[in-house]
């Protein structure tokens, strides 16, 4: 792993959840400093080759690019533990398609910290790349799972929930034009991460699928080129119509 000097913390947006302070890193990862824990969601490794197998010969470098970005944030944060929140691989056979070089880089990353793979809908089984595997996991005041569970938070004794799955993306009206960016979204009970994978698309954070999970004070933490900033969910631009609906 390349040694990159860690800059002064925090250089992301701070999020307060269940009494802990978390940092929304501009890479799209979540950093939990007190536990030295790094969380990433929806890597979708080998999505490019999955599409290629179906006839769309897209450039195959998405895995390399995702791993570049992962190595970069791991180099900066130096986590003791890494949690991958599911859909880490695009499909159950994806790990078999890794190139030798990508497989080696992934192994180095997995070996660098206590690695936990959470199962996702794309990758229900263990990937066979080292690390531990779980359907979901409780750590401190948090439960980590792939997809947020409606009604799972808010009662006394419930853990705060950290999840992925939805690939949230925010549309911000600025003075000059609308700007779109991946985003985290949080309220006082749960937090949803953006997709980390290079070829993962996005779903508008104002979509009913996401909005119905969040409380009234929900905030999106929108990733720009180098910084993350908080914007109330209700102030973001919704997709004006939903052809599916």
């Amino acid at each position: 792993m390349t040694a990159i000097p860690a800059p002064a913390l925090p250089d992301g947006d701070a999020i307060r959840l269940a009494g802990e302070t978390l940092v929304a890193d501009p890479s799209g990862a979540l950093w939990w400093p007190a536990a030295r824990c790094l969380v990433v969601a929806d890597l979708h490794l080998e999505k490019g080759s999955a599409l290629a197998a179906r006839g769309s010969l897209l450039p195959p470098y998405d895995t390399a690019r995702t791993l570049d970005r992962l190595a970069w944030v791991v180099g900066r944060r130096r986590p003791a533990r890494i949690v991958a929140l599911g859909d880490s691989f695009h499909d159950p056979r994806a790990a078999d398609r890794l190139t030798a070089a990508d497989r080696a880089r992934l192994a180095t990353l997995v070996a660098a910290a206590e690695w936990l793979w959470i199962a996702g809908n794309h990758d229900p089984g263990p990937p066979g790349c080292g690390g531990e595997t779980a359907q979901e996991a409780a750590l401190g005041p948090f439960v980590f799972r792939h997809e947020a569970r409606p009604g799972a938070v808010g009662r006394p004794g419930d853990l705060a929930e950290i999840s992925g799955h939805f690939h949230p993306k925010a549309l911000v009206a600025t003075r000059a034009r609308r700007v779109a960016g991946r985003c985290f979204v949080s309220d006082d009970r749960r937090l949803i991460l953006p997709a980390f994978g290079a070829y993962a698309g996005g779903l508008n954070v104002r979509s009913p699928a996401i909005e119905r999970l969040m409380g009234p004070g929900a905030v999106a933490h929108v990733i720009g080129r180098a910084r993350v900033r908080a914007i109330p969910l209700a102030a973001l631009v919704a997709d004006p119509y939903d052809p599916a609906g």
Partner: protein
Amino acid sequence: MPDDAACRLPPLFAGWFAAQGWRPHPHQLAMLDAAAAGRPTLLIAPTGGGKTLAGFLPSLVDLAQRPRPGLHTLYVSPLKALAVDVHRGVDGLLAGLRLAIRSETRTGDTPAAKRDRQRRQPPHLLMTTPESLAVLLTHKDADRLFAGLAAVIVDELHALAGTKRGDLMALALARLATVAPQARRIGLSATVAHPTALEAYLSPTGRADPGAVEVIRGGTAAAPQVAILETAAHLPWAGHMGLHAVSEVYDHIRRAGTTLVFVNTRAQAELVFQALWRINADTLAIAVHHGSLAAEQRRKVEAAMAAGALRAVVATSSLDLGIDWAAVDLVIQIGAPKGVSRLLQRIGRANHRLDRPSRALLVPGNRFEVLECRAALDALADGSLDGDPPPPGGLDVLAQHILCTAAGAPFDADALYEEVRRATPYADLPRGDFDDVLAFVATGGYALASYDRFRRLTQREADGLWTVAGPAVARQARLNIGTIVEATTLKVKLRNGRMLGEIEEYFVQMLVPGDTFLFAGELLRFEGLRETVVEVSRGGRGEPKVPAYVGGRLPLSTHLADRVRAMLADPQGWDGLPEQVRDWLSIQRWRSGLPRAGGLLVETFPRAGKWFLVAYCFEGRNAHQTLGMLLTRRMERAGLRPLGFVATDYVLATWSLDEPTDIAGLLAEDMLGDDLEAWMDDSSLLRRTFRTCAIIAGLIERRSPGQPVKNSRQVTFSADLIYDVLRRHEPGHVLLRATRADAARGLTDIARVGLLLARARDALTHRRLERISPLAVPALLQIGREQVAGAALDDLLDEAADALMAEAAPGLSAADDQGRLAL
């Protein structure tokens, strides 16, 4: 020469001409001679010269003398409407001749059942488009269908050559020559600046070898009578819709028999049409025609026009080409004509006969357009045409062709390479490029070896032929045929009623139920989306929105831009200009200054929270685009936080969050020494160009209308993402090469940038103004095209975040609690 005509024309045809009271044109007879000699032929004749009849005459004579079943003549037109019209005209002729010759059209609008039947029982004459021809060639029975083909006529060749559609057509002709080598090529063209380039398109070798193609020239038309409308109304400072002059346009329509009103965009067509009807006290039959309207509706308008039932049609370029309407006696062009050749073409729609002059009226939309119209008239008087020689063919179009060839039948790479080189745009294609494109089509062409197992094409062990990897690949290839990449459109349908046409999806995204908008000449109320159909009802209240269409804007030829520049610099020559325009220029002189011939005027002023810099370079849009990319990058480095730029043929305008002050420093000549290529690669221009190339080449699927959003994160790929990945990992990839070639075609003009930077060094005038200057107004109206994704992006987000946080006052404390705590 009646005697000569009589001996060359069979009696049936000579009798028909006589019965019409016509005499055949010499070039029509010359076409018969060329057919007898069996040589490919290029007919160059002005509009109204009976070109279409000349093209078909040899085929009709042949079929009359030697009747036989099977497809005899293929007619290819760049416009569906033209194919339909020519079919109508030929059918009428056949009825008059009492010949049992069957003619049909085949376009994207032809029902599937009819298309199937046409392949089993082809008509003698088939009128079609380049795309439909390309699809026909992918069918396994293409050999049988074209076995007896005697002639292929390409109409409006000048409009196809040099475009990607021209590349597609040239490749289809090369394929056709392999399938049906006996078929003779006939090209029909208006007068052009580069006729030899067109000869090459018809030559069997793809090159304009001496004597390979017989060139026949039709007569010259009478000089057109063109005037510029001197409006009594207030001539707008800005805008290009021309609505100020609608009542004067209406008066002209009322006085003429039949008028064609040309506009430059579909949105403008809707607005002008609506405005004309608002004052149509005489309820004159006025119709509207543009490419987004339902095919059925367009055909209705064309038929009514042909029948002489209309007094006027408001049309876009959908009616630019060859439709033969002898009854049109006036053409009105609203908005600047943009090019001399194009203006000539449009004017030629009026009085479609050679012996009488066409009558036309130009209606400038604003004061700048007055200058442009004047320059166009001067150029017409000088007889100088604009146009560049056609560039080499696009590698993206070649990729599409290779995939389609495989979809038809397995091919040998060497043989296909030779065939492709017989298509003019690819006559000089290096084998290396061909192999790269083939590799791209087969596997994506990536250096990563492990990717080889995913294939669209495979090479057979037994005979080394290339073949599609499966039927799904062939199906997808056929669906993707074509080079026109448009924004995704949705169908517009009256509630419980008929389909009105298609509208761009992004416009629909701006509508909420209850909104009204203008479409198909009606005021419609948006009811909602039902699956992928925009449901509307008639009527509705409130200020209507006007649908915007991407890509409607045509570039002004640099030829005209030069003329406008000279006119501006010389106040002595303003006498011929309308008073309002003289006033405008005088106010500009008083408020700021006039651009001088050898100098460079730059204005800066604040507006709507941004700082604008407007440079009056007059070096043409291509050079301004390049300069815009270079200048905004330099502004970025100077910390001015640029947001975007717009380049017109006259002007470059940039806007930034901070005020540019050191103009001489920004325009210093060392700009060109900077890493131009890297800068260009990062521009949104290149990204858009890449997207087009990737779609044509079949890398990204054309998005089907209204594809459900919930699935889009699985299947939709941003072309941007792919562009970035390719630039990083495969900078030499064939699609990036195709993109850069397109950019070089249309975006860069380094030599002229150099010239204007030299003027900036020697004779720069910088005027810092309180507000926008009169001359800057037209340029600023086009703003919104080029965006700069730099540091300003983060600043904008910060600003918006702060503002939105402040706005959400009740939630602010909660947000502070969980969103803004420092560690």
